[in-house]
């Protein structure tokens, strides 16, 4: 297994930014559910989870700025980089779709985050180790939520099963990115966890092995640009604006 955290400063910066971008983009997507979730508890849950992702992104951006040493702040890194500079996985920028699609996307991502943060919890980089130790506890909590929903939907009614399977079929192809950039060794353990959940949910991994990747190199689907345009609008229009 290759080292998860690159030691060269430039590589380390890229790695931190990719992890931060994943969390920021998913936070933005989950936030879109607020006031639209199927029930009040879910509204609150998705808002809470989005805030956790946002908090992880903020800590990572701040740390990335320190590693870079050019004085860029968390806001500079989150709000003043363009689509081509974002290294988030294609998975997280995919639109929310229906609730099943959102939960399957979170299942894929949360499982990845549990693997990633448990590895980084004893990193030599003390700040990153601290961020990871905290994020790990949160990721486990998120995974309980997303896996419980995927099981409930997959093993639910005919309609919920059909939708959950459609979500797995639609999103599976975007999972390759999660294992690029030094984290390849996690794919086996990741897939094992996913298979356990999908089995219980009576869902299956699509037979078509096609995978689309490129997010880690800044090649995104058409969806990220729209998301960033909305998210960055204020800072782009009024640079340096503060509350």
């Amino acid at each position, binding site marked *: 297994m290759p080292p998860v955290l690159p030691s060269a400063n430039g590589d380390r910066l890229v790695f931190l930014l990719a992890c931060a971008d994943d969390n920021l983009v998913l936070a933005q997507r989950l936030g879109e559910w607020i006031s639209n979730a199927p029930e009040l508890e879910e509204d609150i849950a998705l*808002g*809470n989870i*989005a805030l956790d992702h946002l908090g992880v992104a903020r800590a990572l951006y701040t740390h990335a700025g320190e590693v870079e040493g050019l004085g860029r702040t968390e806001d500079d890194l989150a709000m003043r980089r363009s689509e081509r500079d974002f290294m988030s996985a294609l998975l997280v920028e995919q639109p929310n779709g229906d609730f099943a699609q959102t939960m399957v996307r979170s299942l894929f991502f949360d499982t990845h985050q549990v693997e990633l943060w448990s590895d980084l919890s004893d990193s030599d980089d003390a700040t990153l180790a601290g961020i990871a130790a905290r994020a790990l506890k*949160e990721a486990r909590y998120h995974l309980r*939520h997303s896996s419980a929903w995927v099981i409930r939907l997959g093993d639910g009614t005919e309609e919920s099963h059909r939708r959950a399977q459609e979500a797995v079929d639609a999103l599976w192809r975007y999972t390759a990115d999660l294992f690029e950039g030094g984290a390849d060794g996690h794919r086996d353990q990741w897939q094992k966890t996913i298979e356990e959940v999908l089995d219980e949910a009576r869902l299956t991994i699509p037979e078509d092995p096609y995978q689309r990747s490129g997010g880690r190199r800044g090649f995104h689907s058409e969806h990220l640009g729209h998301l960033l345009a909305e998210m960055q609008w204020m800072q782009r229009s009024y640079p340096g604006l503060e509350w």
Partner: protein
Amino acid sequence: MDATQLPGAGVVTATAETDLIRARDIASTVVDPEIPVLSVADLGILRDVEVRDGRVTVTITPTYSGCPAMRQIEHDLKTALGDAGFADVEVRMVHSPAWSSEWITPEGRRRLASFGIAPPGPLGEVLCPRCASGSPRMVARFGSTACKALMVCTACGEPFDFFKEF
């Protein structure tokens, strides 16, 4: 003449010590804006207070990644110390080691329970803050803030917040 023998040198040292004690006392009393019965010291996030050349450095460790209260706490620490005459205050955020709910002091746990919030207990035990029954039902894993879940007591019917084990 040695610097320590200058007139007033001893007074300066005594003042520095008093300043440190005062700064610590003031920082310790700042409360969590979401749970105002709990001070940052009770919550276990106040890691260090230093006074050097008139500058106060307060070190805190954030709780949950998504806790929006951290920014407010930073602001409140600066205001409280500023009001006490410390003009130059820096609040440092240290991530390592990561905060754990085990760091909540026994006093903090008592205060949480008296406020109607069940504190995280040993071995995941959750007691109803009203009747102390140990058989609550989880209503929602995600409650009114990042740190809480919503429970209801099966003995007395009281709905209550539970400060999650973290």
